């Protein structure tokens, strides 16, 4: 019988974790065919160590065009950790000898990623009022990571992002007058290349942030990291889709833009609110196009009911685009 993921993890761990005797409690958490996340414990005489495996299984090594790739993600997380950004410690980058595909193993960080719990549960009541400011500080630290120490990543501009979104939208062949309006607005209002080009996380929002009662504990999922306008990350976290009902608190339903900006500037960053507003429109359209992509994948073979239903959330971004571009009253 072929070795299972558990068997292979059990063989890998003692090679890089001195004293470890094996693993226990391996459970697959999520992900599609091309990327998997597993949670497990490293069994160690000094006490078990919670760990997460993030990998593309053998045969799924090639990253899609826009993804940084798992090896790059591991480097980014290590650099983030070293720079004092809340981040899980990377324990091991997979090698061919592991027979686990490409990816890495990191320490498991306790906390919550589910937005509705972070926004409503009593245990986060003390963290909520400080998170918008804290996340601004985290972003400033991300943006000042030294590019010389970072992996090769795509270099993006607003114009390139507009062109990619337009292409994706056209590929789906479903007319959306509101998306056309947004694309037109973005082209007409493109502020041009930014004065500063920095590392951009690319997906800094609920779901990719582990939060504890004490605040932000880890930034996850660097898959969409690239070099570009740092204001993109500030605009993306203000997209209404990440407010989960708390629509008067633009920063992830947690707080005001001014708090995010103050946290960013306290860590030495410089905020351009007009560019942030531009990227919020871009981000709203981007999530809308991603919802259409889910519908497209559903149509073209993946029959997942969840994907089909995310396709029906595209109209959420259409109303949010109208609220931004054609506000009533």
């Amino acid at each position, binding site marked *: 019988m072929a070795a299972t993921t558990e068997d292979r993890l059990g063989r890998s761990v003692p090679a890089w974790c001195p004293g470890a005797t094996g693993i226990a409690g391996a459970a697959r958490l999520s992900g599609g065919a091309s990327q998997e996340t597993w949670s497990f414990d490293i069994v160690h005489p000094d006490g078990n160590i919670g760990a997460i495996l993030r990998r593309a299984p053998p045969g799924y090594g090639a990253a899609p065009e826009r993804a940084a790739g798992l090896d790059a993600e591991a480097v980014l997380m290590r650099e983030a950790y070293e720079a004092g950004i809340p981040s899980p410690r990377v324990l091991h980058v997979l090698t061919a000898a592991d027979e686990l595909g490409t990816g890495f193993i990191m320490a498991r960080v306790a906390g919550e990623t589910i937005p509705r719990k972070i926004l409503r549960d009593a245990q986060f009541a003390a963290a909520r009022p400080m998170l918008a400011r804290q996340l601004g500080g985290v972003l400033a630290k991300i943006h000042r990571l030294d590019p010389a120490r970072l992996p090769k990543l795509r270099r993006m501009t607003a114009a390139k992002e507009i062109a990619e979104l337009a292409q994706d939208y056209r590929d789906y062949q479903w007319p959306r007058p509101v998306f056309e309006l947004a694309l037109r607005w973005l082209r007409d209002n493109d502020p041009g290349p930014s004065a500063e080009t920095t590392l951009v996380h690319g997906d800094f929002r609920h779901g990719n942030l582990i939060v504890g009662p004490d605040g932000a504990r880890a930034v996850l999922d660097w898959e969409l990291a690239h070099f570009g306008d740092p204001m993109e990350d500030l605009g993306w976290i203000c997209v209404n889709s990440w407010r989960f009902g708390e629509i008067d608190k633009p920063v992830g339903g947690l707080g005001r833009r001014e708090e995010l900006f103050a946290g960013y500037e306290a860590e030495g960053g410089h905020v351009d609110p007009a560019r942030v507003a531009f990227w919020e429109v871009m981000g709203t359209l981007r999530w809308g196009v991603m919802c259409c992509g889910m519908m497209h994948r559903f149509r073209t073979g993946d029959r997942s009911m969840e994907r089909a239903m995310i396709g029906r959330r595209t109209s959420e971004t259409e109303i949010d685009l109208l609220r931004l571009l054609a506000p*009533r009253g």
Partner: protein
Amino acid sequence: MQDEPTPIELVTAVADFLRDDIAPALKGHSAFKLRVAINALDLVARQLTLAGPGEDAERARLSHLLGEEGDLLDLNRKLAEAIGRGTLDLATPGVAEHLWRTTMDKLAVDQPNYASYRRELAREPKPS
């Protein structure tokens, strides 16, 4: 003519059965998947109820804006292209109103609990 019960009645009865009798018995991932399934059935019931009259009005608005007749997909494609080219925009009388009405009608089917929709709905005069 097809017989009763109507598709709306059947879909609603199935959704109610899953919600009331099956959901309480499930846990974990299956419970999550069932919730998605019930949401999908509720959406279908809303669409069967609301889409007909909404789409008739949408087609009439599109014909008026574009000055031509056609099916809904075709007219939407033409409006999208006109906005993309800039021959129609928010300054064109009726465009903003049309986009708002159409989008509100979509949300009423897709996600009637979405907070932006609730907020915008509260701004509209109540139908008398």
